[in-house]
């Protein structure tokens, strides 16, 4: 690499050029964006862009929160600590996991890197899954927004929270049953490079200085950035596709399909998946559908969306094996659908 000075300078120039481009755009953004060529772009394109950027900018702080927590776990929580706090019995761990999920105030964007990190640190897969589906719904912010959006219909709030708690345990239990003998469902590419790296590190291990606070902070930051770039691309792709649906999907179409209780529940679940809303805000969207849809389908929308959506699927595929993600998606979809039908058909 070192003897290749030419490419090195080329790469530096590439980076500097990019920086220059950004600065130029920053300074002349108004001139560019109000220029005739830009103004004459089709409205649909501008709308897609608006919604796309909106989702990305909105999700970034929460992704950052997620990667920072993940980096902190990486740095400061050891495998032993996790083992110590977990109940020895796999089934017994489910309920405390769901309760812990209720305490962690993370939305569905932030929870993915955290869960992945915890699993990597030795948390059993099924416990991680419980977090993954419980935390985005069972959290104070979501509780408050659902309360406000459905002030006049508290059934929605209680069904949403109750179902999230119970279903996260059920989903965790099914994952436990299915993947009991193959707990390692994280993507493997990492471990291969780990192996090669390990040999390399072993030799220099003795000379390693003891980590100072400064290097610890620095490593935490490095982890956070690396993970941001790891996740960010999936977030951005997911946000773009969601923005397309947001712009072009005619919602009155859904209303015509979703006339009976089964089809309306299915329609609202598909809808929740495609829109990829943040769990903090989805209650307000659901309440704007209040007229046309039954309580049952609204609850399905509110429970399913945070557990699984388009933007999320991209991130899951990045971290977990494809087979696992597909199994997870089928389980969550099936369980949410059936339980919503049961709850509103027989109990309420």
């Amino acid at each position: 690499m070192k003897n290749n000075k030419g490419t090195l300078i080329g790469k530096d120039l590439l980076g500097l050029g990019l920086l220059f481009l950004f600065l130029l755009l920053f300074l002349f953004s108004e001139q560019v964006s109000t220029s005739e060529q830009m103004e004459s772009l089709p409205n649909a394109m501008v709308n897609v862009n608006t919604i796309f950027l909106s989702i990305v900018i909105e999700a970034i702080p929460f992704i950052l929160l997620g990667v920072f927590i993940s980096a902190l776990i990486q740095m400061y929580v050891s495998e032993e600590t996790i083992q110590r706090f977990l109940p020895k019995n796999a089934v017994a761990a489910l309920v405390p996991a769901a309760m812990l999920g209720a305490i962690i105030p993370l939305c569905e964007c932030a929870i993915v890197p955290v869960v992945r990190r915890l699993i990597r640190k030795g948390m059993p897969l099924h416990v991680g899954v419980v977090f993954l589906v419980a935390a985005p719904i069972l959290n104070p912010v979501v509780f408050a927004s659902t309360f406000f959006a459905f002030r006049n219909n508290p059934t929605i709030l209680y069904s949403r929270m109750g179902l999230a708690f119970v279903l996260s345990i059920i989903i965790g239990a099914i994952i436990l049953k299915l993947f009991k003998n193959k707990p390692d469902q994280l993507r493997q590419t990492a471990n291969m490079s780990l192996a090669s790296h390990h040999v390399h590190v072993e030799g220099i291990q003795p000379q390693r200085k003891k980590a100072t606070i400064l290097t610890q902070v620095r490593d935490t930051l490095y982890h956070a950035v690396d993970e941001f770039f790891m996740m960010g691309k999936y977030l951005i792709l997911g946000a773009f596709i969601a923005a397309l649906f947001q712009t072009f999907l005619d919602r009155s179409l859904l209303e015509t399909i979703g006339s009976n209780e089964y089809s309306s529940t299915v329609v609202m679940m598909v809808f929740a998946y495609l829109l990829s809303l943040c769990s903090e805000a989805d209650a307000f969207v659901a309440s704007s559908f209040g007229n046309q849809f039954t309580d049952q389908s609204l609850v399905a929308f509110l429970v399913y969306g945070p557990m699984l959506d388009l933007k999320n699927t991209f991130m899951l595929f990045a971290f977990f094996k494809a087979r696992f993600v597909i199994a997870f998606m089928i389980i969550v979809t099936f369980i949410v659908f059936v339980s919503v039908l049961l709850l509103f058909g027989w109990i309420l």
Partner: protein
Amino acid sequence: MKPYDHSFHAFIQGIILIGFALLMLGLILSGNIVYYIAPTMMPFIYFSMTTFFFLGIVQVFRSTKKEDDHDHDHTACNCEHDHQINGPPWVKVMIYSIFILPVIFGFALPDRGLDSSVAANRGMQLGSGINEEISKKSANKKETVESSDSEEEVSRVDDYLDDPEGYIDSLGSSSDDLQDEDHYVIEDLYDEEWFDDYYVELAEEMMDEDIIVVTEKNYLDMMTIFDLYLDKFIGKEIEIAGFTFRERDFDSNQIVAARFSMTCCTADAGVYGTLIESSEAENYDDDTWISASGTIEKDEYNGQTVPVITNATIFEIEEPDSPYVYPSF
């Protein structure tokens, strides 16, 4: 395979982070951030902007550590090296494009609010929609109350038609007993006392006004109030602003003044509008910002009871600074 060029990737990543931070800064400085994010979310945006600037600078410094740095200090964090962006060059270019393009789009494309084509796809709410839920829930319970209510309504409309000024005067004096009646009905429906208190108070306040001015601030509350207590407002003068919008089945004298409401970002934006009937309606294309003033009446649209502003005078206005309206809590 070539060794992974840490320094180059750190450099590019740092610049991308700075690019994102610049984009956010630019949007904040120009005020155009309102097209993307609700004001309540702004602290989060400040957080990510500063974090990005900081991390971007950290990354650029990280890149100055050359890979002949033999103790591998900056990477020997005993973590798995799963963050590397691997693959042939075109894959790397693709991956970085995913990050670079949003920044370029953000700067280059015009910042505009959502328009009526999105409104059409989202489905317009005439009123807050809260009315339907209530009537659905309490249909049996309220039946008797409602029927007497609507009879009273007819007589009140007659009153108004006979003697508009006298009727409006009498509204003020009778509002107290109307209030009691509301209270009875509402408390029947809700447990949360603050909820009805809030709207009852606001409705009372509004009924005392000569002209009801629907502003950005009270927009969603007024939509709710018109749904809850529309009958009490019939015959009142109203002034409302919004962008114009038409459903396919509208008559030529019908138009809607609509606003997008946003909770966090445009993905959760909903459209709330008020039906306007005016001979001037056809002069305005969709997506024109208008202010309309007229008289509130009750009408039905697609089987839903909605407020309608009749005999409205319409004039074009500048697009407001904040294109969206936000929930008041």
